[in-house]
């Protein structure tokens, strides 16, 4: 077993054990996504009743979008929370002085995020099928790369928010929870990009999530996703990932230069 693999699995194990040890944490993984699904699902069912059969497609779009947005959101949260966890429990110094490379820590937090996202997505898909007769397989195989792109974008934002946490400490907590919601209106999760005002469309087209949700809707309509759309998704995701990683490294170095690393969580 390579040393890196051993270290990654030790960090991963540390995060997974948190859930085994705490029922509330395990419950928290599913609680909010399930609540979102219930509320949005029932709202769209009601709209469907009002509008008759013409709104049938709406529920499919909304539930599909909701499940997909959760992949991005949970991915971001898991990456940031893995760092926050160390600060909350005053264990951050132990992690920083352990012979772990930055990429190993990041890889472990990505693995943890993937496990969390996979579990939540599975639960949401089963619930959506049971309550609203929505089957994610309607998207087809396209769903796999779309979900992966949303997860990658979530990781990129997670790295960025983790960097902000290192730079500003707890003062950045509101940003950490708020940034996904800042991106949501411009990601065109529940509506097509053309429905936005012109200035907002420009912003929307800078986000890989916009292209992913457009592609999702196209797939649900039975259409195909053009190669150029995949190009934008990959290109923007790579750019945001580089930006997130760069921000994390810069904030880490800045915190170290200012002697703030061991005081994280006390500001």
């Amino acid at each position, binding site marked *: 077993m390579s040393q890196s693999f051993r270290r990654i699995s030790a960090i991963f194990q540390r995060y997974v054990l948190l859930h085994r*040890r705490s029922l509330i944490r395990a419950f928290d993984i599913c609680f909010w996504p399930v609540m979102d699904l219930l509320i949005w699902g029932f709202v769209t069912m009601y709209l469907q009743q009002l509008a008759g059969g013409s709104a049938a497609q709406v529920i499919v779009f909304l539930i599909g979008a909701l499940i997909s947005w959760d992949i991005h959101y949970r991915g971001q949260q898991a990456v940031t929370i893995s760092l926050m966890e160390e600060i909350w*429990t005053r264990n951050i110094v132990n992690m920083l*002085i352990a012979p772990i490379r930055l990429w190993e820590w990041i890889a472990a937090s990505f693995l943890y995020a993937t496990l969390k996202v996979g579990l939540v997505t599975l639960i949401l898909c089963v619930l959506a099928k049971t309550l609203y007769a929505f089957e994610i397989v309607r998207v087809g195989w396209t769903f796999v790369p779309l979900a992966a792109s949303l997860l990658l974008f979530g990781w990129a934002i997670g790295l960025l928010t983790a960097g902000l946490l290192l730079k500003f400490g707890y003062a950045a907590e509101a940003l950490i929870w708020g940034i996904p919601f800042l991106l949501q209106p411009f990601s065109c999760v529940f509506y097509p990009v053309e429905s936005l005002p012109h200035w907002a469309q420009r912003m929307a087209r800078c986000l890989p999530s916009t292209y992913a949700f457009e592609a999702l809707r196209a797939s649900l309509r039975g259409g195909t996703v053009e190669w150029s759309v995949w190009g934008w998704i990959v290109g923007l995701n790579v750019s945001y990932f580089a930006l997130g990683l760069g921000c994390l490294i810069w904030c880490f170095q800045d915190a170290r230069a200012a002697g703030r690393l*061991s005081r994280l969580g006390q500001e």
Partner: protein
Amino acid sequence: MGFMSTRPLEIAQLVFRYPNAGAPAVDRLEMTVEPGEIVGLLGPNGAGKTTTLQAVLGLLQPASGTVRVFGHSPLSDRTHVLPRINFASVDVDLPSNLAARECLRIVAGLYGVRDAARQIDALIAQFELGSLQRHLVGSLSAGEHMRLKLCKALLTSPELLILDEPTLNLDPYMAQKVRELLKSIQRQRGMSILHTSHNMQEVETFCDRIVFLHHGKKLAEGTPRDILARFQSHSLDELFIRVAVSGELFQVR
């Protein structure tokens, strides 16, 4: 590889200033720790002890000067330095939401400790944590938690152990026991220790050499006996108070 590169710790002209702070927290500090030596870092609050320890651990970037741990920089040669050192502090906790043994198992994984289960068993027995190993860290008393932190620090067989107030939360009986245990492990392994404490009696009996700091500057250095003789003091306690009050030691010749 020469002698210099095998010295556990060598600090030269170290300066660190916190942003928006007037005076530097550490000011042109020079000190070493030799193989198998226990060095006590003493000084009143704000003397620069913790900042110095952080520089040794690579947690901060000095404004100037160098820190060398076994000849390597803890900033740029982390992979060479970090497997050889470990740290226990009253201010740094282990994850409160894991069981005591789980914490040690994860640390063993991070450092690649061989025969981890046996080593964990031995340390848990030595620090009398056997009945608590399946308890959540958050449910341990401050003293029990400190003993667990020492287990964590020793589990990786560090060649340089850094201790920040290791006996602060321990009752006198356990503090004495822990000191004896640390000393015996230190002799057995030939380990070097850099140690801070406000317990002057402990420093006097535990340390081979002490470095007195005040406002980030080194005021004095030597064996506890030498220091007491040089400054005509009956105890380190008295000397410590002298430093805290006047900021000087008034060397007697």
